[in-house]
């Protein structure tokens, strides 16, 4: 099997590289668009969070995104050296709230939970390490 490694700088323009890598992977492995959309959304939300809130200095940081597979799952590992953040502890938003009272934001992590089958988090040597597993589907 393969492993695709992307070193993403803490710059939102880098999100584009994630979607390009996923599009290539979809072609290579014949994954349906819906699967790639879901994975892209999850990675996108998590990496955006890390870039926006993870770092307290103004230095460049590298967020490592690695894509691989086992028999059943497409697996994404995301590793960053930002402040400790466990997205599994984030409360779900109340999506039934109507317009005037609907809070701005808070949906990103919720999308990750909705779109990904298994999510695990660990803090190791000052790194956040997230593993996302999404059941594979084929065209």
């Amino acid at each position, binding site marked *: 099997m393969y492993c695709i490694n992307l070193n993403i700088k803490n710059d*939102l*323009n*880098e*999100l*584009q590289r994630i*979607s390009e890598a996923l599009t290539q992977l979809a072609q290579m492995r014949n994954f349906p*668009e*819906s699967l790639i*959309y879901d994975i*892209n*959304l999850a990675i*996108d*939300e998590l990496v*955006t969070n890390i*870039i*926006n809130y993870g770092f307290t200095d103004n230095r460049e940081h590298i967020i490592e995104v690695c894509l691989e597979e086992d028999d059943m799952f497409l697996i994404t590992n995301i590793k960053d050296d930002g402040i400790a953040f466990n997205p599994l502890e984030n409360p779900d938003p109340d*999506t*039934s*709230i*109507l*317009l*005037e009272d*609907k809070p*701005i*934001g808070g*949906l*990103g992590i*919720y*999308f990750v939970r*909705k779109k990904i089958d298994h999510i695990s988090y660990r803090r190791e040597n000052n790194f956040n390490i997230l593993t996302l597993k999404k059941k594979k589907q084929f065209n």
Partner: protein
Amino acid sequence: MNVSEERQDSHYILSLAGRLDASTSNAFEEKFLSLIDEGETNILLNFSQLDYISSSGLRVLLLGAKKIKTKSGKISLCNLKSHIMEVFEIAGFLPLFKIYDSLDEALKA
């Protein structure tokens, strides 16, 4: 992401093409909210060429919906791809907008 603008009858149409994510949502926010500030009250967003939206994009749409409501205006959407529709559904955003299958349908409404 590219945005093209056009006025047709009473609608101000913004057609979005590409990806509305955290890297593109700020530019769109500026354009969209300034239109509402300038007094547009009937904005139609055409998503026929929009391939992707994340929570950053939804955030801007929600800001716009709140702002236009204070002016008794409305935002309509048309031509949502199925993945985008699904994101709206999960977020509980479907009740916030008038959503049409096609541009024609939206213009007739």
